[in-house]
């Protein structure tokens, strides 16, 4: 496999998806093969039946190889770390010579050293670091400096964002992948990768929120000024909607899932008050039932509103007064729910769109975009990092090594 062809795998709560992508010279991504199988043994992003998961992953990879018609040896993995959170830390370094106390020029070594110090954060024993991203430098009293190289100062400080996840979940996924067996190159937090897939540099600069609603988890990512400002995961997703419907309408979970996909709407439409939906009997022992569309949509609206509200509360608390003119992008399986976009527009009071992977060819249809955005983003993340390593311009080489900003 040449370096321009990359395979990626996502082990999700509702489905296990994988793609093989070719990265073209103009950085657009062309999907060569893909597979999607139903996921078993995972609930809320956590493994509860290991053997079933391994079987599903093997099946997905087999199907992928069949589609690609070549064997795949190494792969990158996109995973939701289970209750992923952000942690901000600071580091300060004195550039000026203590004896002379004259402002001096900032060298690459200074930045490297400072980045290394700032990255070392003490996390609780059950948490594990997934990624680190530089935020802003502070050069003496000049705030929000993005690139301080060549400036002169007495002291330089740096703010770093660390994404950390649950140790037990990440460890178990790593072990599972090793047992399949797959030789994995890199693991990427899925919230971050879907944000990379559906946004471009201009959107990230103006401020954008990407909400990836999956089966068991909801990841969110906020970019502003081309810098990752905040991200995280709530272990609430599409399965919760299904469970709410099953509990509220007293029907089996399988039928609840069906009716959610076919008839569900995240916005309660008062004009639909007389519409009834008849659920046919099925061979799992369900006798059929007639339900009202308003009852169904009340249940869905309550849950979807809560999911968006959780994200909104996080943004309001941690990033108040941030301009997010890029709007809201909803991606992942949850974005297929009717009315989800309109509801998010109502709650955030920002323009909302369905996030589809940009600069990507080869997906079966445009509608398949949101489901594969985490994978396309993982490929793009890998490519960006690879480019930084292999592009040995003297300036970029060292800066990019520790500079988390993704181009």
């Amino acid at each position: 496999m040449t370096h321009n062809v990359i395979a990626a795998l996502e082990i999700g709560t509702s489905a296990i998806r994988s793609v093989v992508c070719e990265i073209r010279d103009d950085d657009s991504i062309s999907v060569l093969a893909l597979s999607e199988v139903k996921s078993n043994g995972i609930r809320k992003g956590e493994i509860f039946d290991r053997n079933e998961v391994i079987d599903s992953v093997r099946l997905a990879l087999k199907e992928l190889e069949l589609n690609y018609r070549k064997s795949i040896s190494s792969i990158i993995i996109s995973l939701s770390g289970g209750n992923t959170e952000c942690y901000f830390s600071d580091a300060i370094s004195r550039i000026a010579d203590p004896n002379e106390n004259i402002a001096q020029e900032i060298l690459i070594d200074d930045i490297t050293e400072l980045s290394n110090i700032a990255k070392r954060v003490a996390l609780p024993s059950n948490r594990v670091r997934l990624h680190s991203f530089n935020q802003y430098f502070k050069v003496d009293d000049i705030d929000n400096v993005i690139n301080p190289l060549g400036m002169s100062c007495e002291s330089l400080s740096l703010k770093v964002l660390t994404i950390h996840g649950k140790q037990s979940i990440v460890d178990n996924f790593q072990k599972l992948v090793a047992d399949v067996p797959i030789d994995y190159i890199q693991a990427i937090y899925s919230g971050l990768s879907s944000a990379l897939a559906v946004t471009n540099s201009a959107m990230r600069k103006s401020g954008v929120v990407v909400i990836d609603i999956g089966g068991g988890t909801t990841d969110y990512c906020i970019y502003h000024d081309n810098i990752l400002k905040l991200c995280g995961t709530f272990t609430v997703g599409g399965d919760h909607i299904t469970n709410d419907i099953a509990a509220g309408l007293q029907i089996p979970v399988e039928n609840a899932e069906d009716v959610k996909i076919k008839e569900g709407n995240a916005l309660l439409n008062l004009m639909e008050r007389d519409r009834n939906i008849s659920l046919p009997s099925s061979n799992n022992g369900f006798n059929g039932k007639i339900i009202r569309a308003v009852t169904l949509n009340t249940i869905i609206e309550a849950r979807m509103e809560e999911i968006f509200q959780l994200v909104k509360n996080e943004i309001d608390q941690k990033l108040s007064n941030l301009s997010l003119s890029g709007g809201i992008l909803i991606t992942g399986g949850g974005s297929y729910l009717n009315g989800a976009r309109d509801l998010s527009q109502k709650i955030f009071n920002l323009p909302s769109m369905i996030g589809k992977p940009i600069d990507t060819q080869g997906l079966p249809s445009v509608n398949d975009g949101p489901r594969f955005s985490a994978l396309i983003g993982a490929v793009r993340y890998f490519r960006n990092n690879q480019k930084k390593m292999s592009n040995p311009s003297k300036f970029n080489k060292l800066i990019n090594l520790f500079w988390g900003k993704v181009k």
Partner: protein
Amino acid sequence: MKPSSKKNLKRILVLGIGGSGCACVGSYAKLNNSLSYMLIDSDESSFSNFTSDNIFLIGKKLTRGGSTGGDVEIGRQVIEKDTSRLRVILEVVDIVIIVGGLGGGLASGAIPVITRISRECLTRSIVLSTFPYSFEGKNRIEIAKDSVKRIRSHADVVIKLHNDKLKKRITENRFEQSFKESHFYFENAINSIWIMCNKPGICGLDYSSLQTIIKFCDGFCHYVHARCIEDSNRSKKIINDLKNHPLTSKGLILKDAPGAIIMIRGDKNLKLLEIEEIMNFLKDEFIDDARINFGIYNDETANGIFIDVFIAETWQEPLINDNLDIFDSQRELALSNDNKGVFSDMEPTVHRNQDLDIPTYRRKNIKLPK
């Protein structure tokens, strides 16, 4: 809902919005001293005859004491800037009656906002709105229609009055009188709601009967008023009046009406026979199993018979029963592990003291439509 000061009396606030609403509410307030009312306008000239207690000048910065100039967006903005003051007022009343002439700037823009706030304050809102004459232009009628749609999404009841219908009734009149006629119509509506909630009758109507029609009417009601001040053949004349009244569309609205509140007021000469005749007529017009709430009031000061009919446009089961005050003080606590379904055996997802695995509608106490 909040407790009233006296147990069975409900506090009613009448809001007049815009030029037309202020004129209407203002002229009724002069007749009824115990009415609590408030006039809301951006135009200072509307308030020339009123004390400062009851006026609410909005948009001091935006319109600087002028009118909105027919711009709905400005109408919306001026009230949005004063929502906190309005909220304080609406929080302490049980029913708010909002009167305004749609089609202009302020009423069309502001009433949807006011109804939204009253919904948030758990205050019942009844909107009495006039539609413009058709000669005022298509644009104004479109504005009015658009506004009614927005009002409908928050208000409990909307009662519409098409000015065109009044025109047919009083073709001979001067224009001043025809505007007065539409004000008179609303004054009667306010008066009958006020009497209903504040005065005990012989055969009673009260706040709860109003509540019933609000709950089931699905947003739209019609209101008809008829009177007879002569001495003989009173019931016949009233029946005739109801049949030919332009606001009942020549009796069409009465036909097959699913539910109504009928309120008959009369002087001390009111006879049972007269009531029987009127009720028999209405009973035959309505559908067989119509829900009729009926009340008789003996009005010492009145001269003649007055009849007020609120007719529900449709009669449907309420979508969501938001009458939450029944068990307010001692609500049953939810069991911790109920209805988690597939998530019941897992580690709970606790976020800010809430288990997110329990269905949201259950945690937030959202009643599901039956």
